[in-house]
């Protein structure tokens, strides 16, 4: 049997929903939440109060998204590892506020602003991760420390780092970052062991990946990957939101492009999109106040017309992945669909056309990534010995050279781990440090690529210009994360590499957030829970007090006096006791003792009513 203290859980940290799973010798299993065995999806939604304290998470937070648009945070994954400047377009679609983080100095780090508080995307993702960690701990009845977390294959270094930071802040040891389509292939490959070339088409809430793998004898070898980190079901919803806003403006001259209403439209559009997966048309009705109602019927054809450009972007990426793997559609033995957005009929149809075969749909597209992540956890823990994932780096890595060009050091689709070595020198006599701008992307110019950060090589012994030879090794590890080391060749000194991430957090910041957030979030959640319990108790007490005042004379004296005494005692307890379990227990017992009074009260009211008429 697996020793649960050694368990490595698999986590699918999704744009829309997140899941946690584990695997044993028998295979992978999802871990359910408090709602019962089917409660496996945790909506990636966090509800704050106006002061920036966490109120609710998951389903409950999502349920209040419409009434609390400014303090309900969703789709955090789209913000991971990004700077504010890159998010201006994204922020337009979000009902909550996104702005520069006040405490990260010159770096361009985006934050979600709630009241006077600023939260970095890793901190927000950590709240989701912690909830999943606790679900796993409840399941096993002991602490769970280690996790495999999945990311879109197209995530760059900054986005992967941000995901790992989120894990650390949540108190997890992130033993591996795994690409989502690769994890899905692992879950798929469990069911069939023969040699095959498989395309995994993964269209989630916010990201799209296409990965092509060769499966053979338990080895899952990624041949090529392509995709778009800003393309998913959210974008399908946005086409509908924009359509409704535009039509309502034309018909009623009402501008709905404000956060509060966008949130309502978002929920509505999501529902319509889902209905159009099963039905040919769906009715739309939006009350605009003062008797004005926007009404129309949206057909599947219209919806497909709106999303065609988006779907075609995924198809173009499929073509690029095939080309990179030197493959044609005929080489693909199976197409596996992953992600909730692959339920959209147009997506299925186009994928079938492009690959010339119907996609494999026997796996639940929303669960398969978590199951694969759990399998990878089992591989790492030594539970599954006969399987191995071999992945590639999704993007080319390079450095900025004189004149602003991107000099490629490691090409995209290179098997990881991999490394490149480059020698640098100094331009001035006695120069003791060299700065390198490290880039990721496929474009020729540095400005069109993404800067991962400036690497500051220091500790170079002072020598005349051009004499030092600083050998810098860029190593991309199996997680797709960059590690840089440097050595001055002539002196043999190891130069220190200080990384200033362009959009990420420093190691110290992550450590501090890990310390603070664990305490604060617990306190926040506990404090809110207590407030909720007290409010409910006081509500029940008020109700009982009113009944006692109006109908207490119907009870025998001892019972009336006992109720009055209990009531007074509970009033005091509500102020002094801070244990929600005790308060809840007492409230329930008290409510049972007032049942007879309530019955008498109802009977008396009915008599009063009939007497009045």
């Amino acid at each position, binding site marked *: 049997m697996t020793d649960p203290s050694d368990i490595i859980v698999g986590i699918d940290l999704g744009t829309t929903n997140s899941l946690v799973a584990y695997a044993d010798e028998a295979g992978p299993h999802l871990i359910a939440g408090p709602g019962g065995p089917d409660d496996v999806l945790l909506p990636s939604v966090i509800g704050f109060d106006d002061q920036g304290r966490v109120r609710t998470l998951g389903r409950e937070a999502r349920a209040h998204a419409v009434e609390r648009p400014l303090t309900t945070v969703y789709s955090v994954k789209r913000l991971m590892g990004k700077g504010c400047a*890159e*998010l201006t*377009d*994204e922020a337009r679609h979000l009902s909550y506020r996104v702005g520069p983080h006040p405490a990260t100095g010159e770096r361009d780090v985006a934050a979600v602003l709630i009241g006077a508080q600023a939260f970095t995307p890793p901190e927000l993702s950590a709240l989701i991760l912690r909830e999943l960690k606790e679900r796993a701990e409840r399941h096993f009845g002991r602490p769970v420390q280690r996790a495999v977390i999945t990311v879109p294959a197209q995530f760059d270094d900054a986005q992967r780092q941000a995901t790992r930071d989120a894990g650390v802040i949540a108190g997890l040891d992130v*033993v*591996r970052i795994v690409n989502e389509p690769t994890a899905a292939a692992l879950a798929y490959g469990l069911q069939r062991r023969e040699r095959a070339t498989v395309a995994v088409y993964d269209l989630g809430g916010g990201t799209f990946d296409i990965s092509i793998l060769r499966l*053979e004898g338990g*080895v899952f*070898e990624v041949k090529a990957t392509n995709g*778009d980190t*800003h393309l998913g079901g959210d974008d399908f919803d946005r086409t509908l939101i924009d359509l409704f806003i535009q039509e309502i403006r034309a018909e009623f001259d009402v501008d709905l492009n404000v956060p509060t209403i966008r949130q309502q439209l978002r929920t509505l559009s999501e529902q319509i999109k889902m209905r159009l997966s099963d039905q040919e048309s769906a009715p739309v009705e939006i009350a605009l106040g003062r008797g004005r109602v926007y009404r129309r019927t949206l057909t599947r054809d219209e919806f497909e017309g709106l999303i065609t450009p988006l779907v075609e*972007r995924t198809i*173009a*990426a499929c*073509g*690029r992945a095939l*080309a990179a793997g030197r493959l044609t559609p005929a080489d693909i033995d199976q197409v596996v669909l992953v992600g909730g957005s692959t339920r959209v009929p147009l997506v299925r149809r186009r994928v079938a056309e492009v690959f010339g075969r119907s996609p494999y749909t026997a796996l639940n597209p929303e669960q398969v990534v978590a199951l694969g992540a759990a399998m*990878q956890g089992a*591989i*790492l*823990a*030594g539970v599954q010995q006969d399987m*191995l*994932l*071999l992945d590639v780096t999704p993007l080319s890595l390079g450095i900025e050279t004189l004149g602003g060009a991107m000099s490629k050091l490691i090409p995209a689709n*290179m*098997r*990881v*781990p*991999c*490394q*490149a070595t480059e020698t640098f020198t100094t331009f001035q006599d006695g120069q003791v440090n060299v700065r390198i701008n490290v880039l990721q992307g*496929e*474009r020729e110019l540095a400005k*069109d690529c993404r800067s991962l950060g400036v690497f500051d090589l220091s500790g170079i012994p002072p020598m005349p210009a051009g004499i030092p030879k600083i050998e810098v090794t860029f*190593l*991309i*590890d*199996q997680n797709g994360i960059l590690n840089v080391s440097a050595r001055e060749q002539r002196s043999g000194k190891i130069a220190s590499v200080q990384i200033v991430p362009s959009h990420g957090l420093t190691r110290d910041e992550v450590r501090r957030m890990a310390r603070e957030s664990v305490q604060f979030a617990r306190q926040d959640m506990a404090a809110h829970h207590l407030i909720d319990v007290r409010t409910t108790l006081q509500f029940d007490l008020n109700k009982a007090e009113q009944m006692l005042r109006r109908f207490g004379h119907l009870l025998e004296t001892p019972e009336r006096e006992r109720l009055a005494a209990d009531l007074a005692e509970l009033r005091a307890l509500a102020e002094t006791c801070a244990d929600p379990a005790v308060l809840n227990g007492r409230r329930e017992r008290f409510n049972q003792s007032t049942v007879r009074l309530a019955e008498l009260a109802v009977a008396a009211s009915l008599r009063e009513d009939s007497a009045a008429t």
Partner: protein
Amino acid sequence: MGFGRTSQAAGEFLMTDDARTVPTRCTECEAHLDFPMVCTGCRQLYPVPESVDYFTLLGLDRRYDLDEEQLHGVCLGLARYIHPDRFAEAPEEVRRLATRLSAEVNNAVAVLLDPVRRASYLLDLAGGPTAGQERGVPGELLREVLVLREQITEAKERHDEAELERLRATIGSQREENLRRIAPLAEGACAADAGHRRELRLRLNAMKYWDNLLAESTPDPLAPATPKP
């Protein structure tokens, strides 16, 4: 566990060209080492000196003619023993060694699987000239490239897809022809005289021009598909 210097000091060694040492027998279980970086018997890892060439690293003959399927098989087989995921529960330094060795093997496989890079690598092993030392190209190439480039530009201006297609085919077959000529030169590089080795380098340098022409005559797949956010 015997990592680093200790394992090298006790093992049996194979002398490579530059007289550096590579272990041939495992210090832990005494099995013969098929690969210098790992014992496939007991999974003991060995740091490999940088001087070990890619062919020795992968247990292949130092030849240009190479069975891609065989190399692919070697690469998957090795991954089963040295991939860092196999050492997730091992001490940090072992995991680091597994990562470094895997990176070296993956780099070696990438170079040897590519015919042009493989030929260039063999030429470097044979004593060059390296790409840095000899930047020239075969005599007629530059004129040929100039003409083709003009034709591409004109065809693009006219949006003449058929002409572009024809040019792509021409360039493709020229590229293939050059590669065919590279093969025997690369196969004999180790024993070749300076004149033949220089000719090989010139032809290798020419490949870049053919690749660039192919790219120029092919519509850029990235341009419309990845607008910056």
